[in-house]
């Protein structure tokens, strides 16, 4: 995990209870208890917003939308601690100073801390769980609608979905828990349940069991500050419920969330995920010459909005309401965009390429050869989604799995079951500078009639289009069109321009269909035994080639 460089003090309240862990045993003394009690009193006051100065949504609720981040050291150790190598010092955020462990659990916590370099789930880029994701030193963005509050995190493109209705899926647990929210006056209260027992609270080995239950309280103190309190209940690990408190501060320096995909950065650094010099962005200092084969011709038939075939739901502002849980009926696009037969365990596909009219990708010769080379067992390892990396654009829209579409004020946001997000601002802003390249690119959106048009640039060229290795590069730009056909169907089209790989633009189209049940969580990396198997197959093939020389 990357440490923060924010020397600013954390919320004042937790500071009053600072007890460095080296002195924690002193808490047993009467003198220390007096100091702690003073802290508890200071913190037990319910936070109150300063009144009319807080922003509110159209329905009168406190408006939490925006980019937020902690300025504390809770992600290193919730309890007060002095600095050590790789650990920045910080005062406790726990009310009362110390976490009330049962004796066995206090010992386990010490053992966890001793082995944290390898035992910390986040050291392996596994999902941090809740509440840890909230105070890792990365920005996150809150999106708010009456039915759902979404949180998207820069760290590994993780998201949280807080439903203001419904009930958790029974008999299934999640790395990030199940979050159900409600408003208590001006405070958003979220019950987080259905946790697994694999996440920690911090780098210092503070932990819980699967019996963990959280109650989070978010209170907007002023336009730029959220007071965040979490009451932790876990009768298997603690002697009583305990509470942590801190503040989130509005981030104004960055207009959008960028990306820190923990496991792709680790794997690129270690060589486990290898650079493809022909498709990856070479950096702003390298001049890219576009090949002469490219002709940016218009499609054979000009684009026309598909006609609706039923009632379209609309938002109060009259724009189509595309919100809900969806699955793409993408006709096997994740196994080949063109029409293809079933090949062993690779499903068939009906073909989703609508332009060019022949239904074939207009690949340049080198790219045709590269696509064939990628579709071999020894290259199965190289598909970024086999590593559980985010799928890029347009693959995010047809990789198998549920997605949720949200339309908070000013944005369209998609959350994907396999832990990825796309944020599409509708405010007409410019794209990021060309040198800023991202896995999911930089998207901007606008409405053309009832069609949502999304333009995506700044892609890093690391994604594949699908499992069979169909290819795109960093020169890729995508225009997507989402048009509601009826209350439960959205027609999706994407036109891809990639002058390094293709001879002309091409377009895919398929319907996206509403689902009755909610999106769940796919913790991909955390249970990804396949990657090792695919690596063995690749390594065997490489060894065979070496022997053959």
């Amino acid at each position: 995990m990357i440490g923060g460089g924010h020397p600013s003090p954390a919320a004042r309240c937790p500071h009053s209870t600072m007890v460095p862990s080296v002195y924690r045993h002193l808490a047993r003394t009467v003198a220390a208890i007096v100091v702690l009690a003073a802290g508890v009193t200071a913190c037990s006051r319910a936070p109150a917003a300063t009144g009319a100065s807080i922003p509110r949504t159209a329905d009168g609720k406190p408006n939490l939308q925006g980019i937020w981040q902690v300025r504390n050291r809770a992600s290193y150790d919730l309890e007060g601690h002095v600095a050590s190598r790789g650990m920045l010092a910080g005062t406790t955020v726990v009310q009362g100073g110390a976490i009330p462990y049962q004796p066995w659990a206090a010992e386990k916590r010490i053992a966890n801390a001793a082995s944290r370099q390898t035992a910390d789930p986040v050291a392996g880029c596994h999902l941090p769980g809740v509440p840890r994701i909230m105070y890792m030193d990365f920005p996150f963005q809150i999106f708010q609608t009456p039915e759902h509050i979404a949180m998207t995190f820069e760290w590994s493109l993780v998201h949280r979905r807080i439903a203001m209705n419904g009930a958790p899926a029974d008999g299934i647990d999640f790395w990030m828990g199940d979050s159900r929210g409600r408003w208590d006056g001006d405070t958003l209260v979220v019950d987080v349940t259905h946790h697994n027992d694999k996440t920690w609270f911090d780098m210092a080995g503070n932990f819980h069991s699967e019996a963990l239950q959280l109650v989070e309280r978010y209170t907007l103190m002023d336009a730029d500050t959220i007071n965040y309190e979490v009451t932790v209940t876990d009768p298997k690990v603690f002697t009583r419920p305990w509470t942590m408190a801190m503040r989130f501060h509005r981030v104004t320096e960055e207009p959008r969330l960028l990306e820190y995909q923990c496991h792709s950065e680790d794997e690129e650094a270690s060589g486990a995920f290898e650079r493809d010099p022909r498709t990856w962005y070479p950096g702003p200092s390298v001049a890219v010459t576009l090949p002469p084969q490219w002709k940016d011709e218009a499609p054979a038939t000009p684009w026309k909005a598909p006609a609706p075939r039923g009632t379209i739901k609309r938002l109060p502002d009259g724009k189509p309401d595309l919100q809900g849980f969806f699955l793409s009926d993408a006709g096997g696009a994740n196994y080949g965009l063109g029409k293809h037969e079933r090949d062993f365990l690779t499903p068939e596909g009906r073909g989703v390429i609508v332009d060019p009219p022949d239904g074939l990708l207009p690949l340049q010769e080198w790219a045709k050869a590269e696509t064939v080379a990628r579709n071999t067992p020894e290259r199965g390892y190289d598909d970024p989604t086999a590593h559980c990396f985010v799928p890029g654009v347009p693959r995010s829209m047809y990789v198998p799995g549920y997605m949720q579409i949200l339309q908070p004020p000013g944005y369209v946001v998609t959350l994907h079951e396999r832990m990825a997000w796309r944020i599409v601002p509708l405010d007409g802003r410019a794209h990021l500078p060309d040198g800023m390249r991202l896995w999911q690119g930089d998207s901007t959106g606008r409405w053309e009639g009832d069609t949502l048009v999304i333009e995506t640039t700044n892609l890093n060229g690391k994604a594949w289009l699908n499992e069979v290795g169909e290819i795109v590069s960093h020169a890729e730009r995508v225009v997507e069109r989402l048009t509601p056909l009826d209350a439960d169907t959205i027609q999706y089209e994407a036109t891809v321009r990639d002058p390094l790989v293709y001879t002309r633009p091409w377009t895919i189209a398929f319907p996206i269909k509403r689902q009755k049940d909610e999106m769940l969580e796919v913790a991909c990396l955390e249970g990804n035994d396949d990657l090792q198997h695919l690596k063995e197959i690749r390594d065997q093939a490489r060894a065979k080639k070496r022997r053959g020389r």
Partner: protein
Amino acid sequence: MRAHWLAGIVFVTAVAAAPSVTAHHSFSAEFDANKPLKLKGKLTEVKWVNPHSWIYIEVAGKDGKPEKWAWETAGINNLYRQGWKKTDLVLGTVLVIDGFQARSGARVANASTITLENGKRLFAGSPAPSGGQK
């Protein structure tokens, strides 16, 4: 060694019509169409995880020694949506699983169907709705 209950490895000769399975990686890359496999063995471990769940059974190897085989199924979300429950699989019971072995030659395979002691058959992959892709 409690090996008396173990059935031997049976390599089936016909390639079964494998169900459509969706993946986060290429199944065709990981598994071998020329190595269809049907094994009977005692359930020793279940990992109910995403992106794919894993079922471990112990079968009698050629020399009579128990071998641990890992079988890949759909992820827990897909199994959940198909109506699977964790209680469907009981440790210590005998399962018959068919599918395809990994190309690497390791004791790893992709499961097509799982037959329980009571004869109930569980489809191990993802459902294949109309349109060819879930």
